[in-house]
């Protein structure tokens, strides 16, 4: 055997020849075949794979849509409607892309919730988590710019409101806004650059997703018990166990997706976006897409414009430092009797903000938003740091395998460590 070649186990001689020179088959086998994965995942662990599939769907549909789309203020709206009417299955492409964005956020929000509940952000997975937050931010930017492209009323006015937020920055604010717009108002240069960036960003996301997965395969996955696998008895090879389990989740995901696309394709959109953009007519209420509403509510909860902008960005930026704000060594909320209700309250505050963000900025929604926003930050900045010191966590199980062998699942975990029986 020539020196410098990888020693491949692949039986097929042609594939072996390739694998010896470029060991991608060995790599795939290692990372997705035999990759040791905790044996006790629940279905929340589907959502990473679902997000990956969703990203690919968005890229695939988006590439075909862009072949028919015209990024010009006078033609964008009609070109989108032409896709709906005259392009073969254009309606399916567009509705899948538009609702795919909503699905992406549902999936990613669930994925983030999984991380929050089972402490997936804690050592040694801090960087993995932070890369995830980067993906989330890139997703938001991509979704925002994508919503501008059909050039309807909400596209135009949403773009105007959101880009104008930057004008709140002292000194440089107005210049930044002009720079973003490529002119003195949201107009054709804005649409053009948004189209360009909207096409670029998904590939940047793809790159960061690669890093996210690479980091994951160094630390290995967290699991519902939040304790480290202690040996082969605690893990299963990724294939066929988790490929089979992910397939179940994937079909369920496609079912929800299909119901949206085929039966309620416009339920999550705003009717005003079927009115062509008109800079002279402001809609009575400018509302962003539903997945931005919690952050929009935080923005509006603060009476000062700059303060609101800062709080809105802080509400996501705070996730970057979450691994250090949470001082408890215990990962899974199953063993944190005090933190658990506080986290569920945080979830409620998130949904309350989502609800209030869609309401007009008047009472009682403003006060409710303020209370919810205050709790949103309080949880991260005060409750979590304090609880790490005050809380007495329940005893952790010895290993993943033992409770699982006795029956598996959260309740079974209690079978071997009495005090957490009623967790």
């Amino acid at each position, binding site marked *: 055997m020539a020196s410098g070649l990888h020693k491949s186990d692949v039986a097929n001689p042609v594939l072996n020849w390739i694998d010896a020179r470029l060991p991608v088959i060995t790599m795939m086998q290692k990372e997705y075949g035999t990759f040791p994965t905790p044996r006790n995942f629940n*279905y929340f662990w589907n959502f990473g794979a679902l997000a990956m599939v969703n990203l690919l769907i968005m890229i695939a549909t988006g590439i075909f849509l862009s072949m028919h789309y015209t990024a010009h203020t006078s033609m964008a709206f009609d070109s989108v409607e032409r896709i709906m009417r005259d392009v073969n299955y254009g309606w399916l492409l567009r509705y899948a892309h538009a609702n795919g964005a909503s699905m992406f956020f549902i999936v990613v929000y669930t994925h983030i919730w999984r991380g929050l509940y089972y402490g997936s952000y804690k050592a040694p997975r801090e960087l993995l988590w932070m890369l995830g937050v980067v993906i989330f931010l890139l997703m938001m930017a991509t979704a925002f710019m994508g919503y501008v492209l059909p050039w309807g009323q909400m596209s135009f006015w949403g773009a105007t409101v959101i880009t104008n937020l930057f004008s709140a920055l002292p000194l440089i604010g107005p210049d930044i806004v002009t720079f973003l717009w490529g002119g003195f108002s949201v107009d054709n240069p804005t649409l053009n650059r948004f189209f360009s960036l909207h096409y670029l960003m998904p590939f940047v996301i793809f790159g960061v997703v690669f890093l996210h997965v690479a980091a994951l395969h160094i630390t290995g996955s967290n699991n519902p018990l939040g304790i480290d696998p202690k040996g082969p008895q605690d893990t299963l090879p990724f294939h066929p166990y988790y490929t089979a*389990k992910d397939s179940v989740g994937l079909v369920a995901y496609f079912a929800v997706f299909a119901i949206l696309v085929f039966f309620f394709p416009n339920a999550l959109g705003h009717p005003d976006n079927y009115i062509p953009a008109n800079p002279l007519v402001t809609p009575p209420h400018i509302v962003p897409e539903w997945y931005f509403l919690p952050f929009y509510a935080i923005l509006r909860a603060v009476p000062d414009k700059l303060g609101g902008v800062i709080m809105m960005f802080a509400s996501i930026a705070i996730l970057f430092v979450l691994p250090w704000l949470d001082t408890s060594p215990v990962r899974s909320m199953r063993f944190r009797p005090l933190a658990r209700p506080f986290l569920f309250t945080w979830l409620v505050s998130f949904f309350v903000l989502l609800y209030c963000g869609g309401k007009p900025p008047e009472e009682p929604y403003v006060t409710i938003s303020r209370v919810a926003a205050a709790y949103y930050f309080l949880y991260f900045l005060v409750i979590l740091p304090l609880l790490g010191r005050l809380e007495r966590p329940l005893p952790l199980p010895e290993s993943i395998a033992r409770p699982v062998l006795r029956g*598996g699942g959260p309740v079974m975990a209690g079978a071997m460590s009495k005090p957490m029986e009623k967790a």
Partner: protein
Amino acid sequence: MRVFHSLRAFSLAAGLVAGAGLATVATPARAAEGAMHYPEVRFSFDGLFGHFDRASAQRGFQVYKEVCSNCHSMHLLSYRNLSELGLSDAEVRAIAATVQVQDGPNDEGQMFERPARPSDRFRSPFANEKAARAANNGALPPDLSVITKAREGGAEYIHALLMGYEDPPAGVTLMPGMNYNKYFAGHQIAMAQPLSSEGQVEYTDGTKPTVEQMVEDVSQFLTWAAEPELEQRKSLGVKMVLFLTVLGGLAYAVKRKVWADVH
């Protein structure tokens, strides 16, 4: 234990659906602006198996052509699209030929008028927005191509609006040239009641052209115009959901089989 697993799977799936549902609840929040409730109308295109009533949509096109099109454009539609409503090629040609459209420039550099062809877009009643406003007391009649998608309530809104004209209640003074409509935001609408008397349009298929009938027909037509893919979309959707149900069952069976030695 199995029970637990399926329970958890179920709760997750339910969570997904609830998430989507919540989003739906949260977004039409802006519907609350007007907090308008439109009378419920049962259309043939509602529901999972919805389809267009082609006879009704054809009559609706006649209403559009004879009444609405005097002020409202539908610039996203072509005459050829009418064949989807069951009109023959010859009928579509004949309909198009009754309309004069501008073409050109010809070899002499002149614009000229010619009868429309099926490939032409519906002719707009006004040359531009200014002309439309000038002819309508300053108001702009919106393009109707996607009107049912562009209004909260869709076809029900169109139905309610067209049926919603009445005398202003005591104490309400209308601005000059405005009409009272109980379903229009602000209740003052520049459009005078377009379908006001029985027999305004003469149907050729023997249907009695009551106001309600004409309104229903034109709502049907406008919905088809806005969502011509609706029938294909819904029938494909039913097949997709059935397919995914079977596939989901298979995937779950495979998963159970694969995991049998672990549990």
